[in-house]
């Protein structure tokens, strides 16, 4: 028993520390500004609902969409439930194969969010590392990295993503390209986003580099890589978090746009953009719900994430408090 007491008290101490952190957070400025902004609360609730819908789509979605055997062509082209001919089984109507639009949206959200998160994560890691190196070491490497960033910034992000997607797709053999499509897409979107991270982190790093605690660490002989990771990095997490949130909105939109153009995710795993593209073919015959509802979902999601990012930027900025 006595051997168990040690880790148990450790765990107790840990949970006590987490509880203390939690209370500090509840009393802190960030949570205070969150409580006072109804828009942000709504945005957070909406975002969480979308995340839950995406994460638990296999259990929450009213219908199966990927299994062709479960589809019934008799259900095809049903309008939303409040229109004449609507079916209470399919709240938002059905597509040409008899798939429920609501279920398609929930499964499509998974792909959209997956690509969005993966590409932002990749861009954040890559951009932060380059920004740290650039800002801390300076010199020729710094001007080289920043010159590339400058040049890339003169092109719109969507164009960069589109061209990288096209170039990598063309460079890979056809059968490989088909399987790797989603990774190529993530890479392309990440490549269009890294610059913002690198520039911001570089700026903050240059400020931190000249502060006394960093100089002290340097004097006692801490390795530069260690200083960057243990001392500088923790002090630039705020801006990185803000950019990551705003980039998530951009990444989701970029993915949707590329998928709409037909160069994004494959049709076998439709994202919101793919759904809009498929629904677009039926727009002229008046079946508007197939493209408009996924579009509305996309806009609401992007708007909510953007509002969260805007709030985070203001809340973490001490000058605005």
């Amino acid at each position: 028993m006595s051997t168990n007491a040690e880790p148990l008290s450790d765990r107790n101490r840990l949970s006590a520390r987490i509880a203390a952190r939690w209370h500090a957070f509840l009393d802190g400025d960030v949570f205070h500004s969150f409580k006072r902004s109804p828009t942000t609360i709504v945005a957070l609730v909406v975002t969480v609902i979308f995340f839950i819908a995406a994460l638990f789509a296999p259990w929450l979605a009213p219908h199966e969409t990927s299994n062709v055997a479960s589809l019934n062509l008799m259900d095809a082209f049903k309008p939303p439930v409040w229109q004449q001919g609507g079916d209470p089984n399919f709240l938002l109507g059905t597509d040409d194969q008899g798939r429920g639009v609501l279920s398609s949206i929930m499964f499509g959200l998974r792909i959209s969010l997956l690509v969005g998160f993966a590409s932002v994560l990749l861009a954040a890691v890559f951009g932060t590392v380059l920004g740290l190196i650039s800002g801390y070491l300076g010199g020729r490497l710094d001007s080289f990295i920043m010159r590339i960033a400058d040049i890339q910034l003169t092109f719109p992000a969507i164009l960069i993503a589109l061209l990288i997607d096209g170039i990598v797709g063309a460079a890979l053999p056809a059968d490989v390209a088909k399987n790797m499509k989603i990774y190529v897409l993530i890479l392309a979107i990440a490549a269009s986003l890294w610059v913002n991270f690198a520039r911001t982190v570089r700026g903050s790093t240059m400020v931190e580099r000249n502060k006394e605690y960093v100089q002290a660490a340097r004097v006692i002989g801490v390795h530069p890589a260690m200083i960057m990771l243990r001392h500088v990095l923790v002090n630039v997490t705020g801006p990185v978090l803000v950019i990551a949130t705003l980039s998530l909105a951009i990444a989701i939109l970029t993915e949707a746009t590329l998928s709409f153009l037909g160069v994004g995710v494959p049709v076998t795993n439709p994202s919101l953009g793919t759904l809009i593209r498929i629904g677009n073919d039926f727009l002229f015959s008046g079946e508007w719900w197939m493209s408009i509802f996924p579009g509305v979902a996309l806009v609401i999601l992007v708007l909510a994430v953007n509002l969260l990012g805007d709030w985070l930027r203001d809340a973490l900025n001490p000058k605005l408090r």
Partner: protein
Amino acid sequence: MIAFIIRRLLQAVLVMLVVALVSFSLFQFVGDPINNMVGQESTVEQRNALRERLGLNDPIPIQFARWVGNAVQGEFGISYRIGEPVGQLLMERLPATIELVALSAVFALLGGVPMGVYTGLKPRSWLSQVFLTVSLMGISLPTFLIGILMILIFGVWLGWLPTFGRNGVVELGPWSTSFLTVKGWASIVMPAFTLALFQLTLIMRLVRAEMLEVLRTDYIKFARARGLSKRAINFGHALKNTLVPVITIIGLQIGTLLAFSIITETVFQWPGMGLLIIQAIQFVDIPIMAAYLVLIAFFFVLINLTVDLIYYAVDPRLRVDRSSSAH
């Protein structure tokens, strides 16, 4: 000044060379082009002769130099999918894209500047609130959704405008234009407005912010104290001073319009360069992709160079900033 221009020009040339290298290296990935050109029963000697004639046995740097030399003259090879010279295909599509971009730039300006001035002068009026709400929509709706909504409302439900294609085109020598027939106008209005909406809201917000800023300054107060007419103050003093940043933004946004025309052209099946490149990417049509890459990079480098030089000429403060940051 001359040193700055030379440095900028060198940078522009360097960017173009890098883009050309990327475009050229695309061709290295698609396998041996000879296989597509000769029949099954061709001998090794025949293949080698063809290879020698096409210059494929030369070292890569020489092939690259030759490719750049051809590209400068507008020779980009023959499209794999369509089987026509790429330079000619691009030239055929160029007027459609240029007209679309130009008309939406005009829309964005004619809509954005007056709306921005109005919301800046009367921030509390209900019309300003309407403008601002609409502009929030313009910023949060992605371009392709705006296009779909416009098609649904004006094409399908109301039936006022054609929903796709470029109709009523008049040929003027090498150029083809939509601006001479009613049909042409009817088909260009919707895509151009779709493309313009985001820029319109951007310009409106920029002009509004600048107006609010300028109207607070002392020289405006002084102009009021002098008893100048409202009109003279608002337009002669205030608006004039907001225009420098607006002009720069517009210059840079023309590049963005060019990029986003890819999306608009796909939504409206507008036969411009954007539709061409999307189809090229889908079918891995490398000559077109390479040519488009070079062409779009050239446009962007040109626009940025021009804007930088104008900036430099207009704003003397920048000269000080640049020279101090370089050290």
